[in-house]
């Protein structure tokens, strides 16, 4: 095994992991970064996206991209409903939003079990293998990472260049001020929660072909998503990307050299060390330097 091949191996894994971490964390970053809501049901929004994609694939025989979109819309609508019914009363109440979303998570998991049973038929992973310079990786994981980066770009464009984006960032900095300038912050929160849930649903849809469709599939993503968002710090775009890149690089190095358990432990230890050195997350560190 030449050194080059091992490095290529490692890079291919980092690239695949990067996509997973960005997809898992982006929706959460929007909601947590923007509105200070800790959404412990984030994993279940991914699950809803995955289920909607699998169902539309099997029942409506929709093509994969359409099915993934349906997954996004399903989570978005669910997010919107929950925001209007529950989350709306919990803004500025960080801890209470955590308890409420934990309750929502319990409900969604059990509801999925009751409606769809312990396991819903899975979906085939499209495209098959990809050989680059002697390293074989799954074509779909490359597609997933590319889509993840594209989504990052979309979110950046929405926040930087749309009217909604401007108002959203204003509300994020200082909602009282924004309100006094005539921004309907209530609508902004509604829109942002929908947007965050939609992105999370898309992520669920993208994950559907690679996971088994079970009610508890969301729990696998929640820890990584939270660690990525917290380590990333306040800036939704740059923070999520940089922390996802560094965490997946370190985790895959650990997994490659010492096995998956070490990879997992290393991810958590890295998060602890980064938080300890940069108490406000990576973006504040970058902003201070820029």
């Amino acid at each position, binding site marked *: 095994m030449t050194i080059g091949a091992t490095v290529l191996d490692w890079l291919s894994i980092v690239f695949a992991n990067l996509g997973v971490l960005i997809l898992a964390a982006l929706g959460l970053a929007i909601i947590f970064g923007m509105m200070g809501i800790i959404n412990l049901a984030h994993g279940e929004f991914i699950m809803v996206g995955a289920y909607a994609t699998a169902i539309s694939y099997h029942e409506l025989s929709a093509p994969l991209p359409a099915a993934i979109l349906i997954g996004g819309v399903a989570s978005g609508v669910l997010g919107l409903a929950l925001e209007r019914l529950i989350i709306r009363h919990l803004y500025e109440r960080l801890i209470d939003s955590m308890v409420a979303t934990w309750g929502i998570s319990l409900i969604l998991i059990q509801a999925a079990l009751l409606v769809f049973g312990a396991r819903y038929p899975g979906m085939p992973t499209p495209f098959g293998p990809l050989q680059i310079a002697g390293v074989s990786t799954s074509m779909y994981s490359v597609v997933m990472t590319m889509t993840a980066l594209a989504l990052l770009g979309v979110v950046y464009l929405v926040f930087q260049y749309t009217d909604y984006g401007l108002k959203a960032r204003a509300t994020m900095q200082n909602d009282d001020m924004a309100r006094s300038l005539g921004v309907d912050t209530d609508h902004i929160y509604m829109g942002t929660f929908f947007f965050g849930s939609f992105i999370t649903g898309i992520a669920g849809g993208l994950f559907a072909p690679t996971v088994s469709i079970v009610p508890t599939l969301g729990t696998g993503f929640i820890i990584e998503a939270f660690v990525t968002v917290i380590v990333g710090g306040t800036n939704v775009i740059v923070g999520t990307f940089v922390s996802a890149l560094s965490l997946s690089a370190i985790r895959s190095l650990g997994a490659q050299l010492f096995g998956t358990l070490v990879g997992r432990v290393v991810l958590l230890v890295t998060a602890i060390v980064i938080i300890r050195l940069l108490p406000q997350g990576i973006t504040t560190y970058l*902003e*201070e*330097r*820029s």
Partner: protein
Amino acid sequence: MTSAIHIDDESDENIVLRTESLTKDFGGLRAVDSVDYELPADELRCLIGPNGAGKSTFFKLLSGQLQPTEGSIYFQGEEITNLEPYARARRGISLKFQNISVYPSLTVRENLRIPVQRHAADVDGRITELIELAQLNGLGDDIVDNLSHGQQQWLEIVMSMAIDPELLLLDEPTAGMSIEETRETGDLIQSLAAQGVSIVVVEHDINFVRQIADWVTVLHNGRLFAEGTVAEIEADERVQNIYLGKEEA
């Protein structure tokens, strides 16, 4: 370019606070730019300057809330540049924060108990004394949240006095106060100064400055712009310009 004129050339040990080219950067922004400041003991002085001049940042460097990028701070002759905030408080530096920092969900008496219990033998006696000083008689058991804005400011001023400091830093003590309350605050501060504590007050209201202090330092764009008696500073045309935004540093 500073026009500091040292009228009274004090010998070193009489200086309670001194900073040497104190600087603080936030990314590209230089909030405090190599400030050399001296405060003689038992003096009541003011620090003025337009918004964003670096007054609060300067105070946070003195209290230890922020670490300077360069320069050093001396208190009673000893260097305290890297000392933790609590250690500076124990040496006798006390700060009244820019936005009111009291304990809203606790009563007045409980608020006062926190600084007093660490510094006084007769805790309840001292608390009652301070309640009178803050003109909050009879409100001892009220929840602080229910007090008026002015009353809360006085409570915090008195609380910061409760640790018997050598140096008291007051950051905009009259913010949000009526004319009458501002004047009473002036009397309170002067009565505190009379008890032999050096005081620096950050303020905007020039009438208030005239009422309480005889020596003023002006900060502008993070630099020590001018220093002198109230009269000199008021007459100094360049000071007026920076307030009107005409003159660049």
